[in-house]
């Protein structure tokens, strides 16, 4: 079977961080943070997958079927909520920042130095 999911997760993390480092717009940076976070979902679910397994939801499957790991799925759910809320909060900060600084370019923010 493939080993692809792991390097893909690593790639998503790094490309997201690259976006954060080079971003010229804070809204874009927040988007990049969301991208970075998707690496954790991919890794979590890849770790919990089992060949030939099915979702551990027994409404329409016999209770003795081979299933994938339910725990990582629960963790990924939590993780998604965390991601959405952090995005919301950071965007709210960006909105206010734009009002008070007049810019959303991180290069132009220079109130806090040294």
């Amino acid at each position, binding site marked *: 079977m493939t080993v692809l999911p792991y390097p893909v997760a690593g790639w998503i993390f790094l490309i997201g961080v690259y976006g954060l480092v080079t971003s010229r717009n804070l809204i874009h940076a927040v988007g990049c943070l969301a991208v970075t976070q998707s690496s954790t979902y991919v890794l979590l679910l890849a770790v919990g997958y089992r060949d030939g397994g099915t*979702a551990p939801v027994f409404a329409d499957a016999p209770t003795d079927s*081979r299933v994938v790991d339910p725990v990582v799925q629960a963790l990924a759910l939590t993780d998604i909520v965390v991601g959405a809320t952090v995005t919301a909060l950071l965007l709210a900060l960006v909105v206010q920042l734009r009002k008070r600084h007049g810019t959303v370019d991180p290069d132009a923010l220079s109130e806090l130095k040294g």
Partner: protein
Amino acid sequence: MSTSDGWLAAALVPLLALVPVLWRIAYGSPKDRLIGQNLTSLLAGLALLLAARGFHRTSYNDVALVVSVLGPTGTLIYARFLDVLPDSRLVRWTALVGVPATVLPLCVATGPGRAMVKLLLIGAMLIAGSVVTSASGGKGGVTA
């Protein structure tokens, strides 16, 4: 659980079709991007329906159900903000041909019952969503 490779292979078709759509969304004109957004939810809905059948899990259809309501919602939101709602024959025909070509065989395979009603509902929502958000008329925007 065993899977049906035929259905899964069929699911590959809309999935692969998403590749050029991604290109369009990333690098197209605003109009192209909106068409791409519209196509994405349509193709994803179809892929999900086929995959659910391939995995023998009717409960996976719920994902397609949510796509069928949130997809057009997303398109309309973008249309409102970008102020374009492009007329796209591509979307229209993909919906009018692709959805029945997918849903009807699925219905036959499923047989009558609650699952079939759900399938038909999802198909109807997908078609309605795509057609309304891609039809000609108006001034090209959400607002009249």
